[in-house]
C-alpha cells in the first residue's frame, strides 16, 4: 500500500491530490519509487496520454522500471537520483510550450523540488498536479545553518550539516521545497526528547 493520508495541519503544509488525465499538448510525468504506481493508475485511466508523455523516473531501489517502460511513453528516462535528473528536467522545461501538463508523484521531497523547477519555468503552481506515494520522509532545512537533510523519518532529528537537534515543523517553504527544522534544545542543551518516527 503506497498511499498515506496526512493529518490535517497548518495552511503552510502542502496538500496533495490524485493524478487525473487532463487535456494537453504534452505530458511530463516525474516520479520516484512508489510514485510509479500513480503513473500506472493514470495510464490505466487514459492510455492515450502516453503517446505524448515524457516520464522521468527515479527508482530509489524499487523495480517498477519495466512496468513504466511497458506503457510505451514517447520518452522514458531513469535516473539514479533527483539531483542527477534535474539537468534533464530543466532542459525539458526550457524547450516546452504552453499546453504542457505536469504530473508529480512519489515523495514530498521529489514533488516539491520538481514543482519548484516547473514554477520557475512559468507554470502556475495551481495547475501542477501532485499525488503522494510511498515514503512519508521529509526534506528538511535547518533554519540555523540552512543545510538540507533529505529523507528525515524521525522527530527530532540531527542536522546532517551542523549537528544540532532539530524539531520537525509543518512550516513549509515552496521556494526551498523543504520543511523547517528548529533547534529543540537551545534553552537547555542536551535535553532532547527521544526521537519518534513521523506520524506515529
Amino acid at each position, binding site marked *: 500500500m503506497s498511499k498515506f493520508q496526512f493529518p490535517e495541519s497548518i495552511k503552510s503544509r502542502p496538500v496533495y491530490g490524485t493524478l487525473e488525465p487532463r*487535456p494537453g499538448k504534452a505530458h511530463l510525468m516525474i516520479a520516484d519509487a512508489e510514485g510509479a504506481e500513480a503513473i500506472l493508475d493514470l495510464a490505466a485511466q487514459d492510455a492515450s496520454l502516453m503517446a505524448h508523455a515524457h516520464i522521468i523516473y527515479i527508482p530509489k531501489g524499487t523495480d517498477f522500471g519495466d512496468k513504466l517502460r511497458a506503457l510505451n511513453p514517447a520518452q522514458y528516462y531513469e535516473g539514479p537520483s533527483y539531483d542527477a535528473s534535474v539537468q534533464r528536467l530543466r532542459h525539458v522545461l526550457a524547450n516546452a*510550450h*504552453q*499546453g504542457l*501538463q505536469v504530473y508529480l508523484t512519489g515523495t514530498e521531497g521529489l514533488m516539491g523540488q520538481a514543482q519548484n523547477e516547473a514554477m520557475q519555468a512559468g507554470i*502556475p503552481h*495551481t*495547475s501542477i498536479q501532485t499525488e503522494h506515494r510511498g515514503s512519508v520522509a521529509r526534506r528538511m532545512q535547518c533554519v540555523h545553518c540552512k543545510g538540507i537533510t533529505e529523507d528525515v523519518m524521525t522527530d527530532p532529528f540531527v542536522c546532517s550539516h551542523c549537528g544540532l537537534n532539530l524539531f520537525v515543523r509543518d512550516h513549509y517553504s515552496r521556494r526551498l521545497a523543504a520543511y523547517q527544522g528548529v533547534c529543540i534544545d537551545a534553552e537547555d542543551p542536551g535535553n532532547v526528547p527521544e526521537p519518534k518516527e513521523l506520524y506515529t
Partner: protein
Amino acid sequence: MSAAPQKAKPGAEQLAVRVSAVVPLNDLVTRFEFQRTDGQPFPTFSGGAHTVVTMQDDGRTRLNPYSLMSDPADTSTYAISVRRDDQGRGGSLFMHTRVKQGDEMTITYPVNLFSLDLRARKHLFFAGGIGITPFMSMIHQLEQSNGNWELHYSVRTEALGTYVDELKYKFPTKVHVYYDDQSQSIPLETLLDGQPLGTNAYVCGPKGMIDWVHATASAAGWPDAQVHSEEFLAPAPGKPFEVRLCKSDKTIQVGENESLLEAIERAGVEAPFLCRGGACGQCETDVVSYDGEFIHRDHWLEPEQQAGEKIMPCVSRFVGKSLELDR
C-alpha cells in the same frame, strides 16, 4: 470570485478634468482626451485600467466605464476611445454628440481589473473591435520595458479598424489584423499551439470571442490562471420594477432604461460601485426577501449566491411581485 468587497464607497476618488481634444477616428469611434483642471499631474496607472466618466445629461447622471488607452506613464493626459452605440442606453451617444473640447467633466481615479501578469514570458493579446482599447495602454507599458508581446486584432472592415494604421506602422511584426468582411478570422488554435511556457493570453471583445478564447485555451491545456479577459457589460434595459430599500426606508421604481444601481442613486441613496459592468464585485448587495425571478447578468456571484441571496445592481434586474434589498 466570491470574497466580499473590501470597501463600500460609491466609486473611486474623483478627478476634475477638462476635455482637451475630441478626435473622431472613424464612423463609430471617437477619442476623448482629458487634462486636469487643477493643472496637477494625473496619477500614473497600469495598462488595462479603466476610469468611470460622469456625464450630466439633462438632469440625468450617467456613469460609464471606459478603458484608459493613453500611455500609462504620461501624466499630462488621459485618453479614452468611445464607440457610438445607437441601440445603447445613451452614454456613448452623449459622449459623441454633446461633449466638446473645453467641457469640464469628472472621471474617477484609474481602477485596474485587467492587468498584465508581469511574470509572463510573453503576452498574447486578442482584441475584437473596440476591445482594442485596454491593449493600447498595455502595449505602451510593455514597450517601455522591452516586453515580449503580440497582438491579434479582429475588426469588421478596414474603415472601422480603430488604431489599425497606427499599430501596424509602429509595430509591423507584432500586430496582426483580421478583417471580417474579407472572411479572415483569428487562427486561434494555431496561435495557442507552440507558445513558450509561461505565455499569458488576454482577450477583450464581444462575449462570444471571450468564451471562445477561454474554451480553446483550456482544451489545449493552458492553465486558467494564464488566460485573462475583460468584458464590461452595459446594463440591459428591461421591464420596470419596484424595489424596497430597507436600510434607507425607501421604495423606488427602476425604469425600463436604467439600471437598478442608477435607480438607487437617483433616489439619493449612496451605493458602492467601481466598474458598473458586473466585473469588480463592489456593488454586491444582499437580498432581504423576494417574490419573483432575478435576471442576473454579472460575472461575479457564484450560482448559489444568485439563488436569492445577492444581486449586483449595476447590471442585474428583477421581474416579479416584490424585492427587498439590504441597502
